[in-house]
């Protein structure tokens, strides 16, 4: 045999054997923690803890972080994407829907895929995208005109493009897809436009729809009676962030957004399932296994559009006995932190992490007990937390190292909820039923003159066993930044003040900061190439990547 060919064949065999280069198999994705040098899903793994096992950067040396490269997006939209990194190549999205492949060490561009969404696309809250999914050599992106696109990861060429829903009717996809086995799963946004939201799975190879789960229960569905009359047809229930997956049960978990119209529930009497709920679906069939509704019959826009965080730990049951449990942790927009049993959906605990005045505890089944009179009125009702929530879509983090759960929170924040009843549904138009108002000036400028009692952003550390607050890192301005924690007890986050910073995950002490000059409205991630650890975050219109000074 030609020695060159032999050499080629042996190195190919070595690559295959190592299993760490080349194709991203589903086995690699579900065992992502075994290759912390890569960041294979939106939240770093199917349990969505946004936690890295990389430990080169520590509380002691984090002060030596320095900028390695910046990618300046050719886009003035908010940069909300979390990048993926596979074997030294970084993939990200330039809003709204351009995909970029870069060298993860130098930031040099390998290729760009440009996509022009249909002019009909009208996402409520910015022409944004939160990231990609990868399987094999294929990248997947949902678009703001509600398409799902498969791209060749080597050259950025499209393989298929499936219309998931109608952009003209208000549907959009803003989150990173989730891969489960041979399917790619996405959900639709558009809760302010009277959509009927859904989660759907598509065949990896063909882009054909395999199953669909409506987040708004309709005819034939057990939840149908939770919607008065025909209100389910425009019930909302959007999906904004990527769900999670448990290989042990084959369940995929997704947080569902608000019912429509948002601020006036008169036309949709009932609990409005499965809005503001977490749904657990069989990932092969899309069948509902269980659901838990955080905010039944919501009129405060308390979307449950948070990442479901999965963790296994000892849990003290009602009878006082401690046993290992399969848990799901959830800091909700409604101001409460929850622990659920992720196999059964059983409600285990719920505690406010910010001021909450719309409920006063839970009944036996874990249903919130409402406070009479705390509903939108034509004169307006003051509610804590306010319309943007105690937290929102910003990624939380769970560190198995500290055992703490970390929340990007808005503290001292309220809205005055006013309802109107002159809103009529028109396809593709805003359908919201009122407007929340702010007791303090809501608009923000380049300067911040706020007092603490007018609301501020914070990173909160919560003991998930008790819901007790361990520490709080206060900012002057609010935050839309996700949180990353590391096995070396570091926490990375940022906020609207334009810093990217590191805290001690055990105490909240600030250890390092970089002025990135624009709001951090994304979750940081970490990766390594040739033994060197990087931390990367999008802020303003750019992607910033840091590593230790050599």
């Amino acid at each position, binding site marked *: 045999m030609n020695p060159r060919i032999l050499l080629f064949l042996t190195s190919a065999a070595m690559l295959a054997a190592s299993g760490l280069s080349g194709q991203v198999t589903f086995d690699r994705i579900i065992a992502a923690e075994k290759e912390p040098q890569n960041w294979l899903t939106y939240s770093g793994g199917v349990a969505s803890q946004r936690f890295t096992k990389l430990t080169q950067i520590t509380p002691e040396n984090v002060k030596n972080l320095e900028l390695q490269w910046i990618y300046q997006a050719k886009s003035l939209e908010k940069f909300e994407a979390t990048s993926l990194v596979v074997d030294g190549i970084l993939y990200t999205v330039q809003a709204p829907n351009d995909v970029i492949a870069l060298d993860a060490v130098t930031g040099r561009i390998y290729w760009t895929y440009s996509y022009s969404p249909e002019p009909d696309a009208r996402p409520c809250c910015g022409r944004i995208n939160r990231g990609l999914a990868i399987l094999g050599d294929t990248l997947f992106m949902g678009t703001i005109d509600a398409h799902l696109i498969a791209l060749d990861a080597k050259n950025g060429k499209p393989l298929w493009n499936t219309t998931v829903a109608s952009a003209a009717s208000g549907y959009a996809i803003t989150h990173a897809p989730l891969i489960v086995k041979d399917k790619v799963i996405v959900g639709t946004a558009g809760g302010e436009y009277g959509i009927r939201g859904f989660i759907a799975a598509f065949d990896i190879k063909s882009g054909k729809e395999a199953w669909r789960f409506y987040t708004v229960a309709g005819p034939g569905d057990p939840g149908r009676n939770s919607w008065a009359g025909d209100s389910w047809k425009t019930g909302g229930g959007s999906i904004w962030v990527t769900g999670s997956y448990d290989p042990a049960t084959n369940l995929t978990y997704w947080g569902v957004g608000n019912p429509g119209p948002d601020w006036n529930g008169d036309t949709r009497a009932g609990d409005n399932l499965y809005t503001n709920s977490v749904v657990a679906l069989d990932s092969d069939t899309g069948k509902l296994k269980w659901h838990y509704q955080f905010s039944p019959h919501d009129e405060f826009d308390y979307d449950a559009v948070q990442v479901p965080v999965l963790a296994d730990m000892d849990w003290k049951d009602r009878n006082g006995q401690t046993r290992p449990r399969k848990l799901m942790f959830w800091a909700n927009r409604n*101001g409460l932190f929850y622990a659920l049993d992720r196999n059964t959906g059983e409600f285990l605990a719920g505690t406010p992490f910010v001021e909450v005045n719309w409920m006063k505890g839970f009944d036996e089944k*874990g249903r919130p007990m409402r406070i009479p009179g705390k509903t939108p009125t034509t004169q307006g009702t003051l509610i804590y937390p306010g319309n943007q929530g105690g937290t929102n879509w910003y990624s939380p983090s769970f560190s198995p190292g500290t055992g703490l759960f970390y929340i990007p929170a808005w503290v001292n924040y309220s809205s005055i909820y006013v309802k109107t009843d002159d809103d009529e549904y028109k396809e593709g138009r805003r359908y919201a039923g009122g407007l929340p108002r702010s*007791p*303090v000036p809501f*608009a923000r400028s380049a300067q911040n003159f706020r007092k603490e009692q007018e609301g501020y952003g914070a990173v909160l550390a919560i003991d998930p066993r008790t819901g007790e607050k361990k520490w709080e*890192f206060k900012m002057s301005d609010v935050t839309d930044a996700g949180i990353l924690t590391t096995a070396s007890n570091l926490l990375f986050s940022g906020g609207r003040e334009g810093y990217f910073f590191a805290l001690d995950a055990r105490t909240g002490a600030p250890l390092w900061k970089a002025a990135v000059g624009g709001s951090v409205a994304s979750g940081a991630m970490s990766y390594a190439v040739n033994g060197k650890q990087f931390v990367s975050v999008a802020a303003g219109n750019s992607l910033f990547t840091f590593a230790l000074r050599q």
Partner: protein
Amino acid sequence: MIHRLLLATLPLLLSIPLAAQHEATQGDVDDGRRLYISNCALCHGPEGGSVPGVELGHGKFLRASNDEGLKTIILKGIAGSAMPPHTFTDFQAGTVVAYLRYMAASSTDATAVRGNAASGKAIFEGKGNCTSCHRVRGSGSRVAPELTDIGTIRRSVELQRSLLEPDAEVLPQNRYFRVTTKDGTTITGRLLNQDAFTVQLLDLKEQLVTFSRSDLTKSAFLDRSPMPSYKDKLSAPELSDLVSYLVSLKGIVYQ
């Protein structure tokens, strides 16, 4: 299960008066004012009366009968006229409407602007001692807000109130702040910016300064405006001269 739960703490009830008309809050009015001043005042003037035939400050409109109609005009403009469309969100347009309603509900006392601007200028620079804190066209102190273009951004009713009850409404950008450094020095100034790590002031020596929060032992907003009330210091005619002078301040003179 209930025993596990920490009950929600009672809301800290801020005393937020819900403005009586049209459910707008003070927050909406403040947001709306900011948008109005930066987007509308150029054509419509601070009182809403600068476009001939249009009066935005009196709650009666030729082309709109309700708030929704006003929002539509603001968002879409008026075809075939100089009234432009605006790229506001629904929420923002709502705050501008709240501000237009607020203007009507707090309409100007016409007598306040019938004074003599020239005499007002003399009071400003002399008896009123306003220049010890305020600056107009290059003279006076910078410690209080610059007033060179105050006549383009404030209504006479607001100017009058600033003189009589300076504490009644201090705009967020005019808040004063005091810090104490580790060596015991106390510095007061107008707050220009702040974040988790730093504070920016224009101090009483008119210096732009930044402090690291880690170097401070204390930092807090001042409760009261440093501006004295002129209620008992100036007569009614003097006050209206002064307001007339402030209304006449329309920015630097273009050459």
